[in-house]
């Protein structure tokens, strides 16, 4: 699924329509099965949609809590299906604790795999980042409240076509881009300022900036 506002709206719109359709079917007495109450239907569809949504976005660490809630809501039905009707399969505390541990565990594994040059997150203060132009796709520049200056090294090896994700909250980010590159942007700016000088330079070395700015300031300078 593309992470655009349109596809997100379409997805959640379809989920809500599906929920309404299931509730109508249930209201007409067309049973989905014993134990499928309206609350279970609404919660079930929304939680499954939540899980699918995060799976599409490869946010595996976010699926464990909706899975836990789904299990707790449908626990009596699951118990019946496995032939242990009337029993608590698992304590709610155990389920939630497992969800928490799984979330933290997957987060740690993902964090260790995306650390270093692949994810550059700064908070408060002044800092400088040097991004390897051989692989700027692997980088995310995040800034909260501080100032960060970004330079590209090995610029002569850049082939073009990479996307750099820039996320700024109340901070200031200055990107020094080699003068023979062309910059295109996809900017979402909330009460901030994104300044990119207009130029007539046409180059194969195109850098695409995906900018998300909240009350911050982002400047692109061509050296």
């Amino acid at each position, binding site marked *: 699924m593309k992470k655009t506002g349109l596809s997100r709206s379409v997805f959640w719109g379809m989920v809500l329509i599906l929920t309404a359709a299931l509730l109508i079917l249930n209201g007409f007495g067309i049973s989905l099965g014993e134990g499928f109450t309206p609350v279970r239907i609404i919660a079930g569809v929304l939680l499954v949609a939540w899980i699918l949504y995060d799976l599409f976005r490869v946010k595996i660490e976010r699926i464990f809590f909706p899975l836990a809630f789904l299990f707790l809501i449908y626990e009596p039905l699951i118990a019946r299906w496995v032939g242990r009707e009337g029993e608590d399969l698992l304590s709610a505390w155990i389920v939630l604790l497992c969800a928490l541990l799984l979330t933290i565990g997957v987060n740690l594994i993902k964090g260790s795999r995306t650390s270093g040059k692949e994810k550059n997150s700064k908070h408060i203060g002044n800092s400088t*980042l040097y991004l390897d132009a051989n692989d700027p796709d692997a980088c995310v520049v995040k800034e909260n409240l501080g100032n960060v200056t970004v*330079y590209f090294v090995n610029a002569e090896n850049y082939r073009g076509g990479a996307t750099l994700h820039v996320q700024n909250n109340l901070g200031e980010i200055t990107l020094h881009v080699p*003068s023979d590159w062309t910059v295109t942007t996809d900017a979402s700016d909330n009460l901030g300022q994104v300044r990119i000088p207009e130029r007539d330079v046409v180059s194969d070395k195109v850098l695409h900036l995906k900018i998300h700015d909240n009350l911050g300031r982002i400047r692109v300078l061509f050296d």
Partner: protein
Amino acid sequence: MKIRVLIDPDRDEEVLIYAHSASPQLRRLQEAIEKALSHQDAIAVKKGASEVFLDCFEILFAETSGDRLWVHTATDVYQCPLRLYELEERLPRGFARASKSCLVNASLIFALFRSPSGVGEARFSGSEKRVFISRRYYKGIRDKIAEMRLEA
């Protein structure tokens, strides 16, 4: 002191200075010219796979990021194999600390700004690059600029 350059392909190259007396300024000028002619002020840096011999007077600033030392000119960034303190020892007097991890060429600073929090910023002529100056080193850089202007 006037500076004249005469282009004459038929004569041997030399630098000749006429002065009224031997002053400290003259001695520094002589040293600077000798250094420049002997390429003592060239620093070996890397850009990709190639090694570049960079004239110190072109360097705007040098700063460490992680375990690497980066040297900036107006338009380029180079990696330097030295440590910051080693580079500091090799650079001429015009360089000063801007922070624990940054050396700045005070002779190329065009403007100094200071925020209410005390953190400074140096801007250079002919480049959009900027350097943050920590509170501790701000006065030192101002003094260095003043000293160099007095000498000039």
